[in-house]
């Protein structure tokens, strides 16, 4: 147990070190001058330039520069945005929760819809119901996410006018950002009609969440179905039948638990897809999240923002992946470390 925890901690630290080394290298790889990429401040004259270089130790050896860079990261001095001039830490910390919020709701839909349908389809394998579900999920899985989002906008926002087109909340509501998570912020805010604001936020949430969730749900349905079929073919299920257990008992005691175990690591991989899709969908719905922010940054060639944005997103993803991996290892110690399942 302690051994496993220790291993994962070392892995975690090593990965973060590799990621921050990568973001440090970006200072020299991006086209602008290193000092601009690092600080986001354009020096006005050579005196200021030299002062900045000395302040950020860019005149010393690379290893010392990197060490200093890490110190700066930990002390919260992430530099400034080249375009807006705002401190990057504030910008990232307001944009990141919006994405996390969106992805969490999408992931909830994926799990709550995908796994039950996948189980049903797996239990009824090779029947008409299974065939219908399977072909539907293959179809939905193949729809490109940006096209789906555009279709949703065209149908539900422009044609019928049922749902709002962009943003997180109607501009009439003035909600101060405290945690960055909108629903909590609405609850915390004073002198706002809470139920109206909640309803508006919910309406804004529907389309982006659905367009992200559809594709991952289809993937999870397929994965779950395959896993259930594989478990049903195992000898211990036959043994359980021979012992006279009812179908319900077999499903809940034996099939479900064993089928869900190999799904977990694949779920971690789905999270990456989900976040990529969230980043694309955010730009279409003008959702003020990290994906939209990063893509605006690349359009404007805001190099210091790109460096920090890359570090923030990849750290988030790595934390999620490693903790799911760890969780999986802890609840299932018998498993071989890198066992993979098929769809």
């Amino acid at each position, binding site marked *: 147990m302690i051994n496993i925890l220790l291993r994962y901690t070392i*892995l975690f630290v*090593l*990965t973060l070190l*590799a990621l921050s080394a990568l973001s440090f290298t*970006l200072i020299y*790889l*991006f*086209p602008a001058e290193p000092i601009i990429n690092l600080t986001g401040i354009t020096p006005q004259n050579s005196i200021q330039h030299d002062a900045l270089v000395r302040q950020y130790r860019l005149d010393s050896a690379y290893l010392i520069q990197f060490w200093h860079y890490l110190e700066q990261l930990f002390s919260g001095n992430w530099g400034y945005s080249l375009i807006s001039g705002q401190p990057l830490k504030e910008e990232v910390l307001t944009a990141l929760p919006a994405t996390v919020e969106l992805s969490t709701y999408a992931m909830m839909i994926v799990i709550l819809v995908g796994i039950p349908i996948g189980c049903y389809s797996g239990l009824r394998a090779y029947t008409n119901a299974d065939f219908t579900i399977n*072909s539907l999920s*293959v*179809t939905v*899985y*193949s*729809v*490109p*996410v*940006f*096209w789906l989002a*555009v*279709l949703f906008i*065209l149908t539900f926002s*422009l044609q019928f006018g049922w749902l709002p087109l962009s943003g997180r909340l109607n501009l009439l509501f003035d909600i101060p950002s405290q945690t960055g998570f909108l629903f909590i912020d609405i609850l915390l805010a004073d002198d706002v009609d809470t139920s109206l604001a909640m309803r508006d936020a919910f309406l804004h949430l529907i389309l982006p969440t659905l367009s992200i969730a559809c594709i991952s749900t289809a993937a999870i349905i397929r994965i779950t179905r395959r896993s259930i079929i594989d478990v049903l073919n195992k000898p211990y299920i036959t043994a359980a039948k021979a012992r006279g257990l009812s179908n319900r008992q077999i499903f809940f005691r034996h099939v479900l638990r064993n089928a869900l175990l190999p799904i977990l690591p694949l779920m*971690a*991989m789905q*999270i*990456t*897809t989900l*976040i*990529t899709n969230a*980043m*694309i969908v955010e*730009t279409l719905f003008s959702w003020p999240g990290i*994906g939209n922010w*990063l*893509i605006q940054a*690349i*359009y404007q*060639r805001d*190099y210091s923002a*790109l460096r920090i944005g*890359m570090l923030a*997103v*990849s750290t988030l*993803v*790595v934390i*999620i*992946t*490693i903790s799911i*991996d760890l969780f999986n290892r802890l609840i299932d110690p018998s498993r071989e470390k*890198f*066992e*993979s399942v*098929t*769809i």
Partner: protein
Amino acid sequence: MSRFSLYEDEIRPSPWQHTWREFKSSHVALVGLAILLLFVFFAFFAPLVTPYDPLFQNTESILVAPSWHPNGSITHLFGTDALGRDLFSRIMYGCRVTFGTSLLVVIIAMAVGVSIGTIAGMLSGVRSSVVNHLLDALMAIPTLLIAIIIVGILGSGLVNSMWAITLALIPQFIHHTRTFVRAEMKKDYIQASTLDGANRLQIFYYSILPNMIEMLVVQGTLALSIAVIDISALGFLNLGAQPPLPELGAILAAGLDVGYLSPWNIAIPGIAIFLMVLSITVVGDGLRSALRKRVNR
């Protein structure tokens, strides 16, 4: 008969023929294969079959409706876009660009991924642990993020987006190859080759690779569908292929500007990407279940 044969059958179908037999029995997979072959045809012969030059701007006929529309004409099968370019020709060239680059990207990623994965699978001890864990963690970084960074360093363009997607696909191939090689190395036939004095390269080339090809084909179709979606997504976000180049995602993004006037400019490129990914997925699925049936029999 003087012929000496160990088997009673006259003809013994090879493993690939077995797979093809199983694959053929699924009609859906065959339809998928037909559509996929159509896209392959477009990819190779687009210049020969397109009625117009995809870049030719005919200002006389802007936003002509598709031929099945009451206002449309048969001269432009899918209508024209905001600059009067024939959409049908653009879609065909778009399939060429999108599908062709995806195929190239997958082949490069496969070659690199398999070589690194094999080395990682044959390694053992601390070295392998570090390599494997780091790779697994880096596999989690989203494609779009890698693409954004590469575009930041090199500038936008189709070739740069290809590099980004190759980089993003490699870890998956490494992962699967490593798992496979590690499982095979424990088996007896590898032990036998080792006792015969085969070195690691020979073991890989003569023993593991022939067994691995099927896994690679299945993984390749999976990676191909991801590559098509990613390349068109980058084109759509204006980070990949740049406007005059007919790339399906870029065509879709251009159609977005006139989407309310001429919905077919959004619908048709989207359907083309969708059909391409769908056919790849269906063929991949058919192949996978054919292989599963063959092995289980």
